[in-house]
């Protein structure tokens, strides 16, 4: 009861969690929700009906079932690659910001190189080079997302490392690792959480873009792959909107949910934002 009250108190967070929750639940319970196996072939190009809620695609697979199963891959890629990127970004950010000196210069130089190259071309290049597989996609997205996190965390760490409590812990004989682990990390966690949610949204979008361009894993179904097939097999040309609209909508709503959650985090950490939102 208490948790529910807290959730509804923050409307932004509530809507975000509900939106994302729908997709997460459908991903988890995909076999129970989907009326058909999304991989079995059948009659192609059927219009929506009671039998096939969103019709069938060019090889006769049920589009609604495809949509439900796609949530698995899309969310999986989004969360795993964002986790990897955040882990790497936080580790690099804390290390560089805490140690400073040449290490900081080298690490941030690397981050800058990744930052100045536009993400999508880099992702395309890397995934062509590495070949289409879901783990390569995850790796590639993580590689392009960590520098942003690292930069933000680093700048926060630089102020924290000069704070009184880090200094006094150092005086009391804390090792560098303990300082980073017990004193610096907990103080950047709110920032890490906000950055992570944002990274999930970006990763989701990047995965969709890559898959749409045909760089995705053809053995997996994701919303991006669905769009790709709808585009290349005539769905757009023939205006079969029940084929190309739903995956697009799913991506949009998912990102909207994540953005809501992120915004509610941000006004926790940044009270100025709250005042702007209240207006």
């Amino acid at each position, binding site marked *: 009861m208490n948790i529910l009250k807290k959730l509804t108190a923050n409307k932004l967070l509530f809507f975000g969690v509900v939106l994302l929750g729908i997709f997460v639940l459908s991903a988890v319970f995909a076999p129970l929700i989907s009326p058909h196996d999304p991989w079995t072939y059948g009659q192609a190009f059927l219009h929506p009906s009671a039998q096939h809620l969103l019709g069938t695609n060019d090889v006769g697979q049920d589009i609604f079932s495809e949509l439900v199963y796609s949530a698995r891959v899309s969310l999986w890629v989004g969360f795993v690659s964002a986790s990897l990127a955040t882990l790497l970004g936080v580790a690099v950010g804390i290390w560089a910001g805490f140690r400073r000196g040449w290490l900081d210069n080298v690490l941030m130089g690397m981050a800058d190189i990744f930052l100045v190259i536009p993400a999508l071309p880099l992702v395309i290049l890397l995934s062509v080079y590495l070949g289409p597989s879901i783990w390569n996609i995850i790796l590639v997205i993580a590689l392009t997302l960590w520098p942003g996190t690292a930069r933000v965390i680093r700048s926060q760490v630089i102020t924290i490392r000069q*704070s*009184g*409590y880090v*200094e*006094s*812990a*150092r*005086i*009391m*004989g*804390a*090792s560098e690792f*303990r300082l980073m682990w*017990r*004193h610096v990390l*907990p*103080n950047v966690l709110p920032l890490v959480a906000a950055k992570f949610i944002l990274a999930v949204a970006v990763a989701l979008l990047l995965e969709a873009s890559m898959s749409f361009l045909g760089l995705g894993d053809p053995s997996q179904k994701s919303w991006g792959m669905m769009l790709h097939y709808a585009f290349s097999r005539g769905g757009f040309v023939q205006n079969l909107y029940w084929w190309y609209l739903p995956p697009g909508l799913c991506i949009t709503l998912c990102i909207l949910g994540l953005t809501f959650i992120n915004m509610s985090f941000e006004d926790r950490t940044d009270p100025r934002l709250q005042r702007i939102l209240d207006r």
Partner: protein
Amino acid sequence: MKNLLVVSNLHVYFETPAGLVRANNGLNLHLEEGCNLGIMGESGCGKTVLVYTLLGLQQPGKIITGSILFSGRELVNLPEAELNHIRGRQIALIPQNQSTALNPLLKVGEQIGEVCVNLNRPDIRLEGARKLLSDLGLGDIHSVEHILKSYPHQLSGGMRQRVLTAMALLSEPDLLVADEPTTALDANTRTTTLNILKEASKRTSLLVISHDLPALKTLCPKLGVMYAGRIVEYGDTLSLMSNPLHPYSRLLMKCQQAGDYLDIPLTGFESRDLLGDNEGCSFAPFCPQATGICFKELPPEVCLDNSRVVCHLYTQSGMKLC
């Protein structure tokens, strides 16, 4: 009595865009075991740099020359790992600012636990801390328990001070350094703090950095007056207070006694920045008794009965050098 800490000819310099800052410039100091030493001196004379240098945390400052002997062990140029072993264990410091010295996200008990981890002494854990906090006047076991479960912001300044003191004392250090322990405290908390330190000095030797002369008088039998990176006078606190030898000490004592009435001739006297090198005595430009030699030659340290003073006034009168 055995010397616990001997600092000799310590030079700690900072390279800044404005030039070389000589924060500690030929500093000599010794502290006998069980005989608390107070250090006073104007703001910016290098007191805090001295404290941090003792712990090997002088960076970005550089130790140019000098030696710090602690229990007969040389601390200058000691590897970081060994310095880290000394910090908190043998030399403990009560930080200057109790309001920022505790991590706002960790409960007090957890932070004390951290110190135990640092010290590699899980055996003392919270048991020792409970007793210490209780000894430091935080009441019975019940209220101590309450404090351990609190976040720093839920405690008053005096309570935080006691927690920090307990953290510093937990390792039973040989030397406890208190950097301006009474600054920015109200009279009541100040007295409490002094009592805490008095209590602490039963277990360990104290080095107290302060502007608070009455506090130094209660805590420390020995007193050093610091000016421009050097200890210009050292002696028994009582005799130094009643009969200061160095012209700067005299001025300082006069200011202390003057209270609100500033009828002392302080014209032209300003805090010295420690930029650049100067021949002769740093205080010479402001010294009412300065003579020609004061501007040309660095004064040597002169030993009088129980005190030492760095001033040409005493070399001229044929006193023996240290």
